[in-house]
């Protein structure tokens, strides 16, 4: 009998091998492994895990079905709450959500809920099972802006309630951050993202690409000219931040958004694609979030020695522990408690190095984390040919600035109630456009809540 205190291990590509390819790192559970892991679930009467899930998946119920090998039933249970299980099973920070609440985790290891969700979603896809829409069309038109996690979730939920939903996407692929931001080795595009978008399509949702709301058409025009009765804005947080230090405009300095978009959306890493990407020899990635890990691991796969420079210590790294662990395994070097103060530039205007200052942790700041303080005189220079700024992003002002009555806060985030209602009647919003950069699953939770609120809005009209 297996030790019930520890999880069934999951197979991954060997770090040395995967550091040179873009294939998925985690290979997922086999049927046998999934059933065995599912048997660790205590099927709690009062399941804490469900409360930890932003979209409230009935976790014990689906796990019991996995245990009984009713995988299709397990998929149906997950689909009731989530439009993107294959995505969430891969990129959710389960350790701080469902798995963080798991009773098993008190004395041993939490049940691998994320990996089981991924198994079920992958099984359904491989067996051609699609979510079903049994609703009757109600004839009401709803526009969803952005095809990222919040938009796809809102669109799926609204379609299941009978609404006539069209998703407008500014880029040429559906998926938002799932296609331009998160790399192939964490989230396969064709296999997983496209398939989940197809599932949302199967619910009756229409998709229109290459439409930039605020430029191609405005929200007011959608309502007045194209007869949409309600709008959900899930346009994300796309604007990159820079440090505003000397040398930042040099060739070889990129926002993580640019670097990742070239690689992920434009597939620059693949033979035969026209979009170029800088394949640095020595790359400095500034920042410590999940996006920084994605940029670092991408640069590494493109052949570089990669240093992550982060101004606080390891304990404060905002990235998921799993991502940091994977990055280290693959050979990414972490230069912690350090911060660039200048980018050194050669005569041709290209990066030749970075001047970095060492930091120490002082008193806690507003975020509760100890504030990093520069150590005077500790500057040193590191040679590098590429610097990737991964300092966070903020919402794009294109929509707020072209829609009368839609208000934002100081940070440019749309002002919305907990239900997602904005300051403009009939217009709802959720995800990073409201909160600033956060996670896929929080955006999905917001999309879900807003879909329910939009339904209530129509019912009360």
């Amino acid at each position, binding site marked *: 009998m297996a030790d019930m205190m520890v999880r069934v291990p999951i197979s991954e590509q060997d770090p040395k091998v995967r550091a040179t390819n873009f294939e998925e790192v985690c290979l997922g559970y086999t049927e046998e492994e999934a059933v065995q892991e599912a048997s660790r679930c205590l099927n709690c009467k009062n399941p804490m895990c469900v409360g930890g899930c932003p979209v409230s998946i009935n976790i014990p119920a689906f796990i019991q079905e996995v245990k009984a090998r009713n995988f299709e039933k397990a998929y149906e249970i997950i689909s009731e709450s989530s439009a993107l299980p294959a995505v969430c099973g891969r990129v959710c920070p389960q350790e701080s959500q469902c798995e963080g609440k798991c009773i098993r985790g008190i004395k041993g290891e939490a049940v691998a809920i994320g990996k089981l969700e991924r198994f079920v979603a992958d099984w359904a896809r491989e067996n051609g099972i699609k979510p079903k829409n049994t609703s009757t069309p109600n004839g009401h038109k709803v526009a969803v802006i952005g095809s990222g996690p919040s938009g796809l979730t809102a669109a799926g939920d609204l379609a299941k309630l009978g609404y006539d939903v069209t998703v407008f996407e500014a880029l*040429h692929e559906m998926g938002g951050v799932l296609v331009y931001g998160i790399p192939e080795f964490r989230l396969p595009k064709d296999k997983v993202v496209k398939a989940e978008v197809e599932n949302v399509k199967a619910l009756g949702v229409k998709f229109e690409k290459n439409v930039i709301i605020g430029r191609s058409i405005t929200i007011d025009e959608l309502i007045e000219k194209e007869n949409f009765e309600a709008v959900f804005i899930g346009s994300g947080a796309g604007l990159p931040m820079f440090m505003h230090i000397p040398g930042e*405009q040099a060739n070889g300095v990129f926002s993580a958004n640019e670097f990742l978009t070239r690689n992920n959306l434009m597939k620059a890493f693949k033979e035969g694609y026209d979009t170029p990407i800088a394949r640095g020899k020595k790359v400095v990635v500034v920042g410590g979030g999940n996006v920084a890990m994605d940029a670092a691991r991408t640069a590494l796969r493109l052949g570089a020695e990669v240093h992550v420079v982060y101004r606080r210590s390891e304990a404060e790294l905002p990235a998921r522990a799993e991502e940091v662990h994977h990055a280290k395994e693959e050979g990414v070097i972490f230069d912690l408690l350090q911060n660039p103060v200048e980018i050194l530039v050669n005569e041709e205007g290209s990066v030749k190095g970075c001047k970095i200052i060492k930091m120490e942790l002082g008193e806690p700041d507003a975020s509760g984390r100890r504030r990093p303080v520069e150590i005077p005189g500790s500057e040193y220079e590191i040679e590098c040919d590429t610097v990737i700024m991964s300092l966070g992003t903020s919402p794009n002002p294109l929509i707020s600035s072209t829609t009368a009555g839609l208000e934002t806060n100081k940070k440019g985030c749309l002002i919305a109630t907990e239900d997602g209602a904005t300051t403009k009647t009939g217009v709802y919003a959720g995800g990073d456009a409201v909160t600033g950069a956060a996670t896929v699953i929080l955006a999905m939770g917001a999309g879900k809540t807003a879909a329910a609120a939009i339904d209530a809005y129509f019912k009360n009209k």
Partner: protein
Amino acid sequence: MYQIVKKEKLSDKIFLMVVKAPRVASRCLPGQFIIVKMDEEGERIPLTICDYDRNEGTVTIVFQTVGASTERMALLNEGDAFDDFVGPLGQPSELCIEENLEETKKKSIVFIAGGVGTAPVYPQVKWLKEHGIDSTVIIGARSKDILFYEDEMRAVATELYLATDDGSYGFHGNGCQQLQALVDEGKKFDHCVAIGPMIMMKFVCLLTKELGIPTVVSMNPIMVDGTGMCGACRLVVGDQVKFACVDGPEFDGHLVDFDQAMARAKQYKTEEGRALLKQQEGDTHHGGCGNCGGDE
């Protein structure tokens, strides 16, 4: 899919295409640009809008073949289609906004178009003509055979001057020298719009600064998404960093750091790539601005 309804070869390396894109055509204004992507493997290529027909739902683009992507694009024909064609992007030209009409009417405007920059100048001049506003246009090109849109421009400009570097047509000299000549003749301008290769815009700005003529330039840096997401197109304008895609593409030319912009435009040009281009283009090689092929 966005169908090409008309294709015309304007010169050896310059092509015009009229593309069916109703959403773009319904809203675009002079000064704005689109991004076109040929197919799955293609790059996202930003091109300033040359003309549009709201009734037909079409947008006209003009491009010069400068690299693998534009060479590939030039092989498309009428009836073929682009996978992606998105816009309008960026801010419209300040001259061509209805609310600014009274201001614009007071101006004495000169346009200087360099090479393929003739294309984005055209809709501005046309818009002004439609609103009863005069404009003087100078088109500069290296030689007669790469000069295009002469008739079209003549139909909308109040006065049109042509200048060729080699003297094969019109004024013998570049656009800057033609402007200087006009000013020397006593013509007065209080607003200049210069669109063309970056090096040309840089020199126009040096001259107009001296002449005291406020000058707007249209920047065409490297871009990926065109919506403010990647920051590849960032420029230094005065003491600020601007994104050409959302803040521009038009900027006060007297504040643009052209040297930095030109260095950034070469970001993806490898030594080998430059050598190949030089070999292919022979005498016509002008280096790489990344888009127009007319820099340096």
